[in-house]
């Protein structure tokens, strides 16, 4: 009945963990942080940490569901416009005297609806997500700007706006990070510790094979687009409260920053590969490097050039690392068989 048992893993645990892409990104964050801590004035201050985290919060939030979408091989370019739209809706409702909790809830629902719209067109009509979300990028932004025009709503209750800059004790970590941590835990469980998450990878690697194994491809994709829409709306609410200003053109161009961070974190744009811890480290890496360079007096344009180069290098290094690990295992296989 049963023959020799097959080992579960080809490589020992330390090699699997330490030589992973995720470990490299996390190590890089630590290296840059420690370098800055001891060499750059003010970088070690808790205030700097607070600013890095507050600045990166919107990207951190949206990168979570975006990772899942990209792992299926799809993409959502409309998220920055959803941020703008939820911001505009929130502003409009508050200006008209709607109570804050209800206004926030409605702004979230707007995100759900945006996600349903994208998801329906991609999953059930079968249109390519790149085309659909380029369309809705313009559509949602157009509606957002149409709702508020060029005005900005700024009369948000301070009891709400303060929340965005509150920090936990003397750690320098913003309290809102707890919301992110909770969401991150949920998304990590969803992607890495659930049958649903395994299905996400299968879809990204081979949609047809996933379908033949009973993965509900359409429903999975719909759910993921609804998740990006909803989390983008949440990020929009945070963004609005943090700046105390609701504008239709809030967060323009954010989608490319999110996607850049996701790719930097080791997710393949072709789908099927990548892990959330790597993505979170990828976002933090961008935050830490930008902050360090800014404190060193480097201008924004130069920072952008450096981040761009880093992204290109990271994509290159992935191919390079794959090549190395392939040739190492090939050599090992042949020497052990001889």
């Amino acid at each position, binding site marked *: *009945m*049963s*023959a*020799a*048992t*097959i*080992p*579960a*893993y*080809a490589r020992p645990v330390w090699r699997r963990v330490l030589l992973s892409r995720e470990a490299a990104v996390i190590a890089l964050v630590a290296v840059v942080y420690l370098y800055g801590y001891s060499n750059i004035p003010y970088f070690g201050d808790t205030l700097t940490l607070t600013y890095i985290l507050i600045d990166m919060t919107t990207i951190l939030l949206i990168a979570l569901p975006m990772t899942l979408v990209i792992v299926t091989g799809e993409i959502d370019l409309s998220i920055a416009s959803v941020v703008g739209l939820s911001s505009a809706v929130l502003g409009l409702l508050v200006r008209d005297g709607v109570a804050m909790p209800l206004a926030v809830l409605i702004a979230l629902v707007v995100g759900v609806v945006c996600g349903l719209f994208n998801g329906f067109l991609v999953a059930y009509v079968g249109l390519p997500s790149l085309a659909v979300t380029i369309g809705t990028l313009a559509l949602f932004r157009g509606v957002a700007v149409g709702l508020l025009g060029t005005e900005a709503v700024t009369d948000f209750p301070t009891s709400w706006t303060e929340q965005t800059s509150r920090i936990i004790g003397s750690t320098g970590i913003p309290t809102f990070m707890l919301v992110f941590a909770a969401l991150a835990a949920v998304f990590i*469980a969803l992607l890495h*510790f*659930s*049958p649903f*998450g*395994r299905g996400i*990878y*299968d879809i990204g*690697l*081979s949609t*047809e*094979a*996933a*379908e*033949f*194994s*009973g993965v*509900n491809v359409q429903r999975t994709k719909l759910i993921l687009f609804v998740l990006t829409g909803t989390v983008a709306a949440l990020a929009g609410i945070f963004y609005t409260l943090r700046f105390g200003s609701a504008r239709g053109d809030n967060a323009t161009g954010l989608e490319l920053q999110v996607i850049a961070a996701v790719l930097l974190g080791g997710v393949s744009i072709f789908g*099927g590969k990548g892990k959330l811890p790597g993505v979170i480290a990828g976002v933090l890496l961008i935050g830490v490097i930008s902050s360090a360079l800014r404190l060193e007096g480097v201008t924004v344009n130069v920072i952008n050039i450096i981040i761009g180069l880093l992204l290109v290098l990271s994509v290159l290094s992935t191919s390079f690392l794959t090549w190395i690990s392939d*040739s190492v295992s*090939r*050599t090992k*296989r*042949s*020497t052990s068989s*001889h």
Partner: protein
Amino acid sequence: MVSPAQAALRLSDVSKSFGPVVALRSGSLEVAAGSIHALVGENGAGKSTLVKIVAGVHRRDGGVFELDGQAADFGSTAESKAAGVAVIYQEPTLFPDLSVTENIFMGRQILGRMRRIDKAAMYAEAERLFAGLGVHIDPRRPALGLSIADQQIIEIAKAISLDAKVLIMDEPTAALSGVEVERLFTVARQLRDEGRALVFISHRFDEVFELCDTVTVMRDGSYIATRPIAGTSVAEMVALMVGREVAELFPKQEAELGEVVLEVTGLESTGVFHDISFSVRRGEIVGLAGLVGAGRSEIARAVFGVDPYEAGRVTMKGVAVPAKNPRAAIRAGMAFIPEDRRKQGLVTEASVAQNVAGVIRRGLARTGLLTRGAENRAVGPWAARLEVKTSALDAPARTMSGGNQQKVVIAKWLATEPDLLIIDEPTRGIDVGTKAEVHRLLSELAGQGLAVLMISSELPEVLGMADRVLVISEGRLTADLSRAEATPERVMHAATHGSQEVA
């Protein structure tokens, strides 16, 4: 035997390694002009590497390679083509949006005045080529939508227009129907009579015996033997290939038939299949025979719910199974091993463990969380039971041979403990040794009470394995034959004539 002087193609003691991996130890092949030479061997025997050396894809490390007595050494496929070598692959790669003619003359278009492409001359030449081959293909139509058989004919036409002296056909019949195979054979014999040398690679022995005059057997990267077809037998060839006698290729044991598991009534899909009714019992293997394109796979896909159907019903153990819902079919106890292993059966980039856990993982998530450890524990016994040959469970499926990949797919579905196993072309592209293993396994499973619906284009497989043979012709069920009634003649008659033998 052929003397070296008159051999159109001669390889002797050719070797090739990729880094430290030896793909070809000592390959030898000698093909005379005006001959069809079969090259057989299990997967991994080195046939493909040998062919790729002749085609100029790889450069050999050592040994002799001669064309028409002249030493040859190709650094690119262009060089081999120029020297008169053409390779026709199992699935040709044509440009789908270009016309048939443009495909034939790709890269060497006939030019008219002012170096303008002379389409009229190209069409005329294409028509002449097709007429010479005795086939009817419109040279002006786009390649898109052509059957694989027609695409191969276009590759052959291209080879002839290049005046290829040596034609190598790598498993050309794997995806062809009976009629198409016949047409290909007619063309091949004609090319032979024109004095060209043909090499025919196939896993189907009946075809080798029908078409070829000489056979060379390879095993483990080495030349084993060359025999005239007239003086050899299937048993001898198999023994040479596997290095041992395979007693029984299709060992179906008698099994006690139990209650009806799958019942299909009046299944209908416009233009695909019509009024299909049949049932499969516990312990029974039902073979679904017919020509490629007759609608067999489509019926199986509809039953499993991957494809929709318009009318009719499917029940499992008396309970209706909803249409177009693979998950419901799986819950009802169905398992489906599709025809295209690499695209549909497996996620080739995923690991063995991920593939085997592919369906059962929904049940493994205790407390809602699923861990690698739980998957590995669940998967290990199945991989071991099927003797999947892999270094570790986290090795990607793409690194494995076709036979091992098929074992992974089978393990994935057996892990669901199904009542019905639908298996489409169980042994396509699998070497002889693994083939026998798969057959033994199916028989064993049926013996344990599994109902099996098996689709196969290999008649010996159907006749050897099935308790009952259903024949599909042009989307209709044209025969329902018991094991005793099912002779090759009756099955082929029902498959090609479409007459209603048994309703």
